[in-house]
């Protein structure tokens, strides 16, 4: 009798569906491993679990004793949220660059993987819509007095609309590029949202319309699926969808370690299309500064911390009493400059910039100017808020603070920046 080995090659073990399932599991395991590096037990214990408990308690209280304003909320807001959730869907086939060698030469396998992608998309849409509607179901049933039949029909309607959007967005991404794609997406999203909310609102009183539209959507989606299955040459598009999905899932955690950053979708930048300088190139320092400021404006990951500081910092000086606000205003520039210093150093270590030997004096001067100029608009805004608070609180001469505090803020900012810069220069020399 022939001995059976576990690693024996058996052709029936291999099918597009098995491969798809293997890739889906590998993908989610890799995402989970990545998130596990930041979600340790302390984060669960001190942030997530208390957050879930507090939110559940608050939600229960709202349902038991609904505040009056809750009855005033138009149902269209909840339906619009449900519609927005559907716009996040992408057709995933879990394609890999190596598929070009074998898999994409075999029509059966390509079609199998695409069909598996449809099922995966439908499952994800169903989970997302069901979870969202389950969370808001008590509101829909008890506050808005909707029927269970309507809520059930709404789940089906959301799932099929989400699936249809997934097919449409896949088609748009393959057919258009650049600003045309942006324009088509903007138009399609607006039309989808208006129609989705309109039908869902009408369906509240005539469920049959909701069901009828759902059937119509299924027919259109089936036609798009048929078209998609017959489309050839989609591998590069599928790989770029997979890359974008991975970056969207873990990009924030790996932002400093990702070797290959996402390639811009456009051939030319949206800002400074003709590479025109943002600051005049008076010398090498200004040339370096010009590159830094353009990087901040073109890279959202560099701009985001600055926007957060501006938003949260403004709230921090606006809300507390005047004296506390002044103390916070004095401390905030230090935090902002430290964050900018870290960003500046990361930017300098970008492979292309690190290729060159930069003079120490040039780096020191550019570092000082880069931080002060980046922080100045935010620090000035905080200073104006302090000035307005002073004017409102003390009146008369207090209003002078609107002019005096921003000037003092500038000197305070440069003073802290000089200290921070000298520390970083000493550290760089030691290195």
């Amino acid at each position: 009798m022939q001995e059976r080995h576990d690693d024996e090659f058996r052709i029936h073990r291999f099918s597009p569906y098995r491969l798809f399932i293997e890739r889906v599991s590998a993908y989610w395991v890799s995402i989970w491993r990545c998130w596990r590096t930041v979600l340790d037990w302390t984060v669960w214990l001190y942030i997530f679990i208390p957050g879930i408990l507090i939110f559940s308690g608050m939600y229960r209280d709202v349902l038991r004793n609904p505040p009056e304003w809750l009855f005033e909320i138009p149902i269209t807001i909840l339906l619009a949220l449900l519609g927005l959730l559907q716009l996040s869907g992408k057709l995933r086939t879990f394609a890999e660059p190596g598929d070009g060698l074998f898999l994409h030469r075999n029509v059966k396998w390509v079609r199998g993987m695409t069909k598996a992608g449809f099922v995966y998309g439908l499952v994800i849409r169903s989970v997302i819509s069901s979870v969202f509607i389950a969370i808001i179901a008590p509101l829909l049933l008890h506050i808005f007095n909707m029927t269970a039949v309507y809520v059930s029909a709404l789940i089906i309607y959301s799932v099929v609309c989400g699936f249809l959007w997934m097919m449409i967005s896949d088609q748009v991404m393959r057919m258009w590029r650049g600003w045309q794609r942006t324009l088509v997406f903007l138009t399609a999203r607006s039309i989808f949202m208006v129609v989705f909310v309109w039908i869902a609102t009408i369906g509240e009183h005539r469920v049959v319309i909701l069901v009828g539209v759902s059937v119509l959507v299924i027919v259109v989606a089936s036609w798009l699926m048929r078209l998609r299955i017959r489309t050839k040459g989609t591998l590069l598009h599928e790989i770029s969808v997979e890359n974008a999905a991975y970056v969207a899932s873990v990009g924030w955690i790996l932002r400093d370690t990702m070797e290959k950053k996402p390639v811009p979708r456009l051939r030319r930048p949206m800002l400074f299309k003709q590479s025109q300088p943002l600051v005049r190139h008076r010398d090498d320092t200004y040339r370096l500064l010009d590159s830094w400021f353009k990087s901040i404006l073109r890279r959202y990951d560099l701009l985001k911390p600055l926007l957060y500081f501006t938003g949260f910092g403004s709230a921090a000086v606006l809300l507390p009493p005047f004296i506390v606000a002044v103390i916070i205003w004095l401390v905030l520039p230090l935090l902002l400059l430290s964050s900018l210093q870290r960003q500046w150093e990361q930017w300098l270590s970008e492979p292309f910039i690190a290729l060159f030997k930069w003079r120490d004096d040039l780096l020191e001067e550019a570092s000082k100017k880069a931080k002060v100029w980046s922080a100045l608009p935010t620090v000035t805004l905080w200073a104006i808020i302090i000035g307005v608070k002073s004017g409102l609180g003390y009146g008369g001469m207090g209003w002078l603070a609107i002019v005096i505090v921003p000037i003092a803020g500038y000197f305070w900012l440069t003073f802290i920046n000089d200290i921070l810069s000298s520390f970083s220069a000493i550290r760089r020399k030691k290195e």
Partner: protein
Amino acid sequence: MDNETLPLFRADIEEAGYEPGHPIVRDVIISVKAGERVGLLGPNGAGKSTLMKGILGQLPHWKGELYWRGEEEASSGGFEMSSRIAYIPEQPILYERMTLWEHLVLVAAAGSIPEELFRERAEKLLRRFRLYSVKHEYPVRFSKGMQQKTMLIIGFLMKPELYLVDEPFIGLDPGAVLELLEALDEERSRGASVLLTTHVLDSAERLCDRFVLVHDGGVAASGTLEDIRIAAGCGPDTRLFDCFHKLTEYDEVQS
């Protein structure tokens, strides 16, 4: 030794590699005189690119000394791109959110090239390598060949004393190869030196004055084409390709 006989650049590498205790190259001496063009040749995995990375201070494990005009480099961490040295890597290194022109502006800042001179040089090079029409586009969106040309422009823009060029012919179309060879000829007439690694032995034979053949992490042979022929036991008209084949094949049999 007077300044004229001193090599412009010399690297005495005891060992270099990516992991401690596992050197990829050992006991290699490379020197390049002013105006000289040296070809660093060897089969795949011989350690050519490792040597280049070592010279540029990009290796985690490196033991050896670097000399510039006979003076030992105080930093010894390796050379970075400056007005002395330009590095043209095999894999283009680019910044995702900078246009081609902005890449060149940054090169001008690093090399302290005056604005007028920079514009003149940059525009000439962009036209030469046929990238003028795409100078306001992101090079990360270019084809491999166009990205390679971008790296060449960056290197030539600096007008350094020494070019370290890693596999320059890969990805270039025949027209661009010709432009590259001509540009290197012009740089030689200016007195610039070149240390290049390549597998394209015909071009290397035409381009280089001297060769260092690296094999199994060490130097198998070095010198002029004549020296290489003698080391390989070949006749006076033998091409570099055949000598290379004989030297590496011989070593293969011995090992």
